[in-house]
């Protein structure tokens, strides 16, 4: 019976981590539904981007208040998690504060965790106010209604609870140390939680131990819960921001991909020696579909983008179309892509690993033509995204489908394009008159 807590801890830890691993596998499978894309170039630059943008948060501080608060929460979370290591070892071995022999280093560590915890609490409160009281415009757009809004707040509540549990645990421990309770040796510094001590005034040692234990267990269970909540939340970005900034777009933002399948066809058409009636070679792959009407037509980096999106709305708040009341919102493009991808993933789960057409697709059922045609391809969204997401590439891929597979461009654009075909200019002027401007 003596080992019951250790065994219980082991089981909870195993279940928590196991479920998380299962979700990560599902995530990987879903992302791999996307087309292949070559991102093996420029490894040095990619590492640099990841270090700068994800680890260094260089794009977050473009907006100083949100940026600073975010860095506090981020640093706080990463560092306080060192404490989790100790909790896990203690839990498995039945020890108490196994790192305590580090002495002054330990005092310093625990002390800084506490200060960070306090800062995190402050930042979380500010974040909550921005979302719910100040109601910053970018947090109240239509695509944020329902779950996304709840998700945003829930994360803040979880963080708050975790920080309070951590401080309560420390405060109780400190109290026990001072009361000279068995197993609670003097260790650690408690610059913040010391102020919580009056709570325990007059409580018996066993009551304080009970509180300490409850806070300890709740803290670690809370962390495991949070770990598993990520998959269902925009909070996935705390993990995916790293690969996403690594695989993010390199080079000039104005450079759009050239579709290779089109290149091959165009070359064939322009090649005077090619026989247009030649039967296609037997091994020729079936010509793929041009552009994207569903998530499987996008490439896997675009799908990774969708899972990484933090729904911060920085893209949307910079979007000229959105600012002038159009339906287009680059954030919604990313959220729709993720929602549809999740739907496809569930479909695969329910059908023994095979996708069974469900009569739905990303185009029309999620993203409308009206949104797609409102984009000016200005790249403001790409520039603004703090985690290197490229909503524009998805918009263009879907326009490609509309134009090349469906001939469904707005009439004026069809006119423009037939002018280019016939006259080499988007207007109906004669190519022979190209130089008339010189003498006008």
């Amino acid at each position, binding site marked *: 019976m003596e080992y019951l807590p250790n065994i219980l801890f082991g089981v909870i830890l195993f279940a928590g981590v196991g479920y998380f691993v299962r979700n990560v596998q599902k995530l990987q499978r879903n992302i791999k539904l996307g087309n292949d894309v070559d991102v093996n170039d420029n490894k040095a630059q990619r590492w640099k981007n990841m270090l700068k943008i994800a680890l260094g948060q260089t794009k977050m501080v473009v907006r100083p208040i949100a940026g600073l608060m975010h860095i506090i929460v981020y640093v706080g979370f990463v560092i306080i998690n060192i404490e989790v290591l100790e909790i896990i070892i203690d839990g498995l071995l039945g020890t108490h504060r196994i790192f305590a022999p580090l002495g002054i280093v330990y005092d310093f560590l625990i002390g800084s965790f506490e200060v960070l915890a306090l800062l995190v609490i402050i930042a979380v409160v500010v974040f909550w106010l921005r979302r719910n009281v100040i109601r910053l415009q970018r947090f109240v757009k239509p695509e944020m209604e329902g779950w996304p809004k709840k998700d945003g707040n829930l994360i803040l509540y979880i963080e708050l609870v975790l920080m309070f549990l951590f401080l309560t645990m420390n405060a109780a421990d400190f109290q026990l140390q001072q009361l000279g309770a068995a197993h609670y040796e003097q260790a650690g510094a408690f610059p913040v939680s010391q102020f919580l001590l009056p709570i325990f005034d007059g409580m018996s040692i066993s009551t304080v131990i009970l509180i300490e234990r409850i806070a300890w267990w709740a803290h670690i269970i809370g962390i495991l819960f949070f770990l598993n909540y990520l998959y269902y939340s925009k909070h996935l970005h705390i993990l995916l921001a790293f690969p996403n900034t690594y695989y993010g777009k390199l080079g000039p933002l104005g450079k759009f991909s050239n579709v290779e399948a089109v290149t091959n066809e165009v070359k064939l058409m322009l090649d005077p020696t090619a026989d247009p009636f030649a039967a296609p070679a037997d091994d020729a792959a079936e010509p793929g579909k041009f552009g994207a009407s569903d998530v499987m037509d996008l490439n896997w980096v675009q799908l990774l983008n969708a899972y990484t999106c933090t729904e911060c709305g920085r893209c949307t708040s910079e979007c000229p179309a959105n600012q002038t009341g159009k339906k287009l919102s680059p954030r919604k493009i990313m959220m729709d892509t993720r929602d549809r991808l999740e739907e496809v993933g569930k479909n695969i789960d329910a059908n023994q690993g095979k996708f069974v057409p469900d009569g739905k697709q990303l185009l029309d059922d999620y993203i409308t033509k009206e949104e797609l045609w409102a984009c000016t391809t*200005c*790249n403001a969204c790409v520039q603004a995204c703090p985690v290197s997401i490229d909503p524009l590439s998805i918009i263009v891929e879907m326009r490609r489908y509309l134009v090349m597979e469906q001939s469904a461009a707005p009439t004026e654009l069809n006119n423009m*394009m037939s002018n280019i075909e016939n006259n080499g200019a*988007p*207007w109906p*002027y004669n190519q022979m008159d190209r130089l008339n*401007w010189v003498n006008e």
Partner: protein
Amino acid sequence: MSEALVVKTMEEFVAQGKQPEILFWVGSAGSYDDRAKKISRAFVKILNKASVDFAVLGSEESCTGDVAKRAGNEFLFQMQAMMNIEVLNGYEIKRIVTCDPHSFNTLKNEYPSLGGKYDVVHHTQYIKELLDSGRLSLEGQVYKEKRITFHDPCYLGRANAVYDAPREILKKTNADIVEMKRHKKTALCCGAGGAQMFKEPEKGDMDINVLRTKDALETNPNIIATGCPYCNTMMTDGIKAHEKEASIAVLDVAELIANSI
């Protein structure tokens, strides 16, 4: 414009067995749009003044296909690109200058993998070169103490990170360069890109160019400077919407420089 401009085609250069220093890519707007034609003429005036040995393709030039590509017609884009590349490579073109950031972007970034590799510069960068090397100098002071605000074209600025060249040459006119609140990386689009120039906007509560012109008006300018024929149209329509066309001019950087030499 009264002065005669000297413009030779590649065909003429080849007939004389010569290669030009640069090829001036005029672009469809610069060739056919009434307002943009003036920008082409202003730029040629500068080139003539600096005695630059340049050529144009004339009737051998065709749309770069940029606008088709942004509209999603990759097929048409690549057809146009490959036809143009055939002409450009046939003439062994090395260096291209253009007044249109959209042509600039696609020639520079999207033509190379299709076989067209050139050194492509925007006209503001080229004018800066001419000024820096002393081939061109500004004497006129017409814009002295005028307030000029520069609107960053998306395909020059954000798309290719060219922010300084236009500002540096504008400063040489001795004008007061005033910045809009959102400029450079955070500049707002004029609303023309992505093929919007050729269609009506989607339903909304305002037109993008009107919003962008509002940004410009906040700087209380005498002149709004542009570096793109489409931005020019958009901003011109924008000041009309704000009923400011009598007091504020919209001019391309090339025109401001041409008027200062």
